[in-house]
C-alpha cells in the first residue's frame, strides 16, 4: 500500500507545479500553447497522488508488488520525456525560423544598400 504521507507530499508537489504554471501564464512568461503539456502533467500526477486506490490498482496492473508510488515516478518521468521531446520540436522550428529571418534581413539589407548607392 501507498503510505499516506507519500500521497500527501506528492499531491502537494503536483499542486505547486500547477500553481507555478498558472502564474507563469498569467504573468505572460509562458504561452498557453506551451503550457498545455505541463498542465496535463500536473493534473495526471495530482490525480494519481490523491486517488490512492487508483494508484494501487494501476501498480498491480503493471506488476509493481511492493511499492505503488514507484508508478508515480514512472508516470512523472514519462511526462517529462514527452515535454522534452515536445520542446525539441519547438526548438527545431524556432531555429528554422531564425535562419529564414536572418536570410530575409540579409537580402533586405543588400537591396537597401544597392538602391542607396545608385
Amino acid at each position: 500500500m501507498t503510505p499516506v504521507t507519500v500521497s500527501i507530499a506528492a499531491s502537494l508537489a503536483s499542486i505547486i507545479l500547477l500553481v507555478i504554471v498558472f502564474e507563469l501564464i498569467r504573468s505572460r512568461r509562458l504561452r498557453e500553447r506551451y503550457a498545455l503539456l505541463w498542465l496535463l502533467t500536473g493534473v495526471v500526477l495530482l490525480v494519481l497522488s490523491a486517488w490512492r486506490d487508483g494508484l494501487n490498482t494501476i501498480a498491480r496492473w503493471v506488476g509493481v508488488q511492493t511499492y505503488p508510488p514507484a508508478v508515480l515516478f514512472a508516470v512523472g518521468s514519462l511526462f517529462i520525456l514527452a515535454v522534452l521531446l515536445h520542446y525539441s520540436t519547438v526548438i527545431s522550428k524556432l531555429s528554422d525560423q531564425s535562419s529564414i529571418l536572418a536570410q530575409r534581413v540579409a537580402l533586405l539589407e543588400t537591396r537597401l544598400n544597392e538602391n542607396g548607392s545608385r
Partner: protein
Amino acid sequence: MSSLRRIAIVPALNEEGAIGRVVDEIRAYDPGLEIVVIDDGSVDSTTDVAREHGAHVLRLPFNLGIGGSVQTGFRYAYENGFELAVRADGDGQHDPAQLGAVLEPVLRGEVDIAVGSRYLERREGYRSSVTRRIGIRLLARIVSALTRQRITDPTSGFQALNRKAITLFAADYPHDYPEVEALVMVIRHRLRLKEVPVSMRPRAAGRSSIRTLSSVYYMVKVLLALFVGSFRRNVVPLEEK
C-alpha cells in the same frame, strides 16, 4: 462615405483562388478604403494575386498563425495613422457588400468596435457545421458571462474598429486563435463593443485553417486563455504618438 482614413485588413493563407475577388469586392464597396493583405507564409501565389489586384501586401516570412498575422495588420494601420479599420477574411466568407452594416456603428461613434454576428438574427447564409456551432454556443455563453454583455458569435473575425481599438490591438493581441480572447480583452479595457447581424458565405476556395484535431486544441487553448486571462490585470495600451 466619409473622409476618415480607412483600411481593410485581410489575413490570407494559401488563398490564391479567393483573394483576388475579395480585394475587388472590397474596392467595389468603397474605393476610398485602402486594402492590406497579410500573407501568413502562403506557399501559393497569394501575394502575387493580391498585388495584381492592387492591395498592399505584407508577406510574413513564415506562418505566424491568425493572431500574429491580424496583429501585423493592426500595427500597419496604427503606424500609418489610419482612423478606421475593418477586418475581412481572405477566404471570402465575409461578404464585402455587408461592410456597411459592420462599419456603421463605428462611424456613428456609437462603439469602438463592431462585430458581425451570424447568429444575432435568423438569416440565410453560412452558419458553420453542427459540431462547430456547439463549440461556438459554449464559447458565446462563457464570453457573455465574462463580459456581462450578450455575445452570439464570439469567433467572428468580421469586425470594424476605430483608432482606439486599433491602438489596443496593435499593442496587445492574443496568439493563435484570437477572436474569443480579444472580445474579453476589449470589454476589460472598457472599450464599447456591439454585435451587428450579418450573413456569411461558405469559403470560396481553399480550406479552413482549423481542422478536426486542431479544433480540440482550439477549445482547450481558448478556454485556458479565458480562465487565466480573467486573473490578469489590464495592459496599458500604446500611447498615441
